[in-house]
């Protein structure tokens, strides 16, 4: 792309340099303030060397981290959470993995042996007085019906956190036009989100006690227990969670290798306690003492 045009600027610059500028520059020097002696450099600094990109997360040496047994960590966390509502503040688990930055991530749902979110209100849209409705009620749904729910929602009363629709009632629901109210809240059942189902009972059960987890930046985080749990209950939940993660990692072992690096237990108000993997240390308190209500 070497045009003839590219030769023109040097000529013009030469001309202006030799004649026009020196005469104009000279008087301006005299006007400048005293600080101009400092010679401000207008040169741009040389471009920085490009940082080498890495495809693994930095792994810290866990020798520097004090690790705790589950009972010890629970004693600390219960003290930090003193006076809080035992069902609102939750034990959280953070599982650090040894993994690549780019690549498939661990992602799944599971049902813990002891449910964490017990206060979820589920609404099931299906014909009332049918076998499906009875099944949904027994699985833990709080609101079951068709026209009643439509009327309620249209009035603006939405007292549920999840909404499931039976496949046979889908047409009726679409006709009722709930999208304007439920849509913005993310409650409208649709096949895409897996909330239009035929097996209502199973879905409700999974929703009531199930929770989702997903690896983000090499860490899987999930709530594993309520503060009122006893150490044994929490141990069962933690074990179920870790087993599930290991199973997920095993399934993708042909594509990528992942390993658990560190397991941290924390809660809403407490710092994170790195777990040593044992249930009780020799000098930790009796399990019975943590069994009492908070």
């Amino acid at each position, binding site marked *: 792309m070497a045009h003839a045009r590219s030769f023109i600027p040097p000529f013009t610059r030469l001309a202006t340099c030799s004649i026009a500028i020196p005469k104009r520059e000279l008087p301006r020097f005299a006007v400048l*303030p005293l600080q101009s002696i400092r010679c401000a450099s207008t040169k741009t600094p040389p471009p920085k060397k490009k940082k080498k990109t890495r495809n693994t997360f930095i792994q810290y040496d866990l020798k*520097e981290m004090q690790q705790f047994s589950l009972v010890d960590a629970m004693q600390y966390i219960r003290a930090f959470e003193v006076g809080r509502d035992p069902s609102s503040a939750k034990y959280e688990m953070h599982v650090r993995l040894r993994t690549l930055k780019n690549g498939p991530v661990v992602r799944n749902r599971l049902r813990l042996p002891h449910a964490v979110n017990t206060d979820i209100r589920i609404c099931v849209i299906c014909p009332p007085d049918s076998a499906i409705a009875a099944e949904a009620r027994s699985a833990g749904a709080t609101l079951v019906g068709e026209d009643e729910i439509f009327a309620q929602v249209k009035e603006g009363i939405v007292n549920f956190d999840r909404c499931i629709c039976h496949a046979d009632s889908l047409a009726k629901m679409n006709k009722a036009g709930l999208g304007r109210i439920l849509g913005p809240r993310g409650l409208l059942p649709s096949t895409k989100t897996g909330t239009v189902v035929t097996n209502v009972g199973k879905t409700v059960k999974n929703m009531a006690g199930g929770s989702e987890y997903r690896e983000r930046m090499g860490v899987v985080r999930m709530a594993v227990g309520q503060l009122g749990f006893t150490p044994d209950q929490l141990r069962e939940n933690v074990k179920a969670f870790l087993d599930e993660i290991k199973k997920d990692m095993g399934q993708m072992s042909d594509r990528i290798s992942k390993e658990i690096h560190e397991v941290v237990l924390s809660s809403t108000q407490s710092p994170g306690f790195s777990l040593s993997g044992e249930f009780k240390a020799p000098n930790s308190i009796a399990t019975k003492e943590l069994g009492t209500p908070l």
Partner: protein
Amino acid sequence: MVHVKVRMRKLREVSIIPAAHVPLFLLWIRVGPGALILPKDVSKISLEFHKQINGGHMGAKKFWREMLPRIKYRNPSIPIQISRHDSPSGPALLHIYTASAGTPSADAASSSPEPTPTHTIDMKLQTSSLILQQLIEKTKATILDATEQEQEELAALEIQKARSEADRALVREKLDAKRREEKLLRLARGELEAASV
């Protein structure tokens, strides 16, 4: 995740995060006001006070935030409940329930519908340290002093704090000098009005 060293230091440090007002640290929860062991007959402690501090409820809140965790850490089996009401003129009380010698244990106390507290402390318009003092007097709790190792750790932390304060001053000095230089340079280029300096 955050670097292991940073997390470890946070666990060890004795201070309060100003934004959250949540004291987060290990030594903090072992040593300080509230590190005491309640006698065995204390079965439950309950507090009630206003949701905000106006109306003389600040001491109660401070007591909860700063001293109750230490009490709970040393007495993990004693339930501590807090209920916060909506009226500033309402009560600010601390109830201490004891399992009396006649009843077998805490089971009997919990089965009765409304057990009466053995001691009650009025926390209104009181500082947290005064509330703690009354609690110790009424329950005859034994205060735990810092062990030798804990005292050593505390001293080490003090040294570290002093050092980091000195380092901070050093860095601030350098930064200030750099900023001053940059400002003068901008002035020299005429980007800044001389009057605004």
